[in-house]
């Protein structure tokens, strides 16, 4: 490897390391938490399979 390549390589990783860490943290920490908040309403089943027409 040439000297300039070695320098470029180190600088690139010094730049990428905090960027990747920050992006990973941002993506993971801002994930929506599962919430179980819903009005108490009953939902009747709509599956009409038993009423199927047999032509």
């Amino acid at each position, binding site marked *: *490897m*040439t*000297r300039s*390549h*070695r*320098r*470029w*390589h*180190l600088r*690139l*990783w*010094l730049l*990428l*390391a905090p*960027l*990747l*860490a920050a*992006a*990973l943290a*941002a*993506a*993971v920490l*801002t*994930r*929506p938490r*599962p*919430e*179980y*908040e*819903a*009005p108490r*309403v009953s*939902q*009747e*089943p*709509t*599956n*009409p*399979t038993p*009423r*199927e*027409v*047999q*032509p």
Partner: protein
Amino acid sequence: VSVRYAAVNWNRNKRLYDAVLGAGVVLYVAFFVLVGKLTWRGDSGLSDEVLLLRALGTCAFLLLHVVLCIGPLARFNRRLLPLLYNRRHLGVVTFLVGAAHGALATGYYHGFGRLNPLVSLLATNTQYASLAAFPFETLGVLALAILFLMAATSHDFWQKNLSPSAWKALHMLVYPTYALLVLHVAFGALRSETSPLYVALAGLGTVTVIGLHLAAGWREWRRDRSVPRRSSECWVDVGAADEIPDSRAKVVSVGGGERVAVFRHGDQVSAVTNVCAHQRGPLGEGKIVNGCITCPWHGWEYRPENGCSPPPFAERIATYRVRVEGGRVFLNPEPLPPGTPVEPAAWRRLPMADSSPSSNRPAPEGDEFFIGWLPMPRRTARLLHPVAVLLLLIAAGTAAAVAYYQRDPGVARWEEKVTTFDGVVFAPPYPLLRIPGDPPRTLLLVSEGKFGAARRVEQVGDRRAVRVRGTLLHRDGRALLELAEGDDGIRPLGPEEKRRVPPLKGAELQILAESVTIRGEIIDPKCYLGAMKPGGGKAHKACAMLCVSGGIPPMLVTRDADRRETFYLLVTEDGGAANELVLPFVGDAVKATGRLERDGDLLILRVTASGVGRR
């Protein structure tokens, strides 16, 4: 190395390398699919396409980690150089596996809709300003485009024609590509999957790659800074000649220039640049084989006395003047033009050293030299065989763990058989069928692909008695019918048929709450109710947007503590279709505020633009 260009200059080591690589990829994908199939079965099963595209995607990501770790590992331990020798094949396979993932994901999530899949890939979700909705697919497309460029130019033909510097610069793009893929995973899979294992694996991989590269880079930087003392203005004292093992080199940094490799071959000392003309490999870590300095990376050869490759090759590297005085080697740090002949300095052993001259000593432990076209040294093989087995075990273990801890897709089913129903069809705001009974049942109607059924229902007419045929999708009590293609998918009932249908009792609209806020996810019910498994979450967002923009009615789904799901049909404040209003939020975790109504067995939430937002 070959005189003519050939697709691949095969040798035994390359064949072994590729065999292990192929076995690893097959093992990974097979384990992933097998464990995925065994873990998620029946109505809880994941779609085959999803399993395969996830297997391919995670496999490509793992391969890229291996590609990136090989370079620094080979710098820390020379016996790992065989992993580097054929690394380009590993890179090309990484691209191919990644391309298969990309093609499958594009066809599956972006096909069958109102847009060309490639257009949809870039145009359906354009919310770049949002962290939650960020279109991670674009990052994958960019990464794949760069990987393609690198795979397509990986052959020596391109290296020769682009020039080694340009080629190397192009292939350094693998580092930004890696960053793009980490972000692709972070804003895609990691926001869909809930298992901490995914975060742990992604974090471990990233820390390993970054740590190895920083450690290797730091070591090289320190070596560049350690400059030997100068004995005069133009000569540098490199050290004692007998410190250099026979046929090996000592690498020295000289001022701000390139490193120099000072080789000893028997009683002769020569110096050449440390940079190979091929891929800038470290020549000083190579060995003189058959009278030629042989690069440890790919076996390119140069004569030590003039820096020229043996005929018919024409590569040349810079040479340096060197002299030996009193057993010490002195180097003139000014490089000579590539290919300049320099008389090797003669080194006469001191009489005291005659009893055990280093030139006659056996090669020191660990001095074995690997290059692909030579048989692999025994000690190197003893290290590499367990490493290959370890890598295969890591592949199988990772595949099994990632497949096992996938998010539960829920219990949903897409019936295979065609079913027929008679009822009354309603068009606005969404096409649905009311099936008479006590109580009457409601079926949402959609067309094939990612399209609603509004046009087909309009052709028949609103509130008409019809017969519909199609395939049922259902999940947690909610059902939907995909109308069969052709005229018999939906048709008005004839007078005789109408008489057999019981009258539809009018369902009373009931207001449950004037204003209520519900937290959940906006979904396209066709995918969520069984067309795709899983049919929700960030990874599916673009597909859901394509479905909703194609006319499939948007719904809000909530889950209670017992994981029971409730579905709310979303309509505008005035009761119209809310597809456009909620489109940016489809696939997102949202809170929606509006009036809650019950219409028969349907729960309806009337929302306004300001009433829907991400949570």
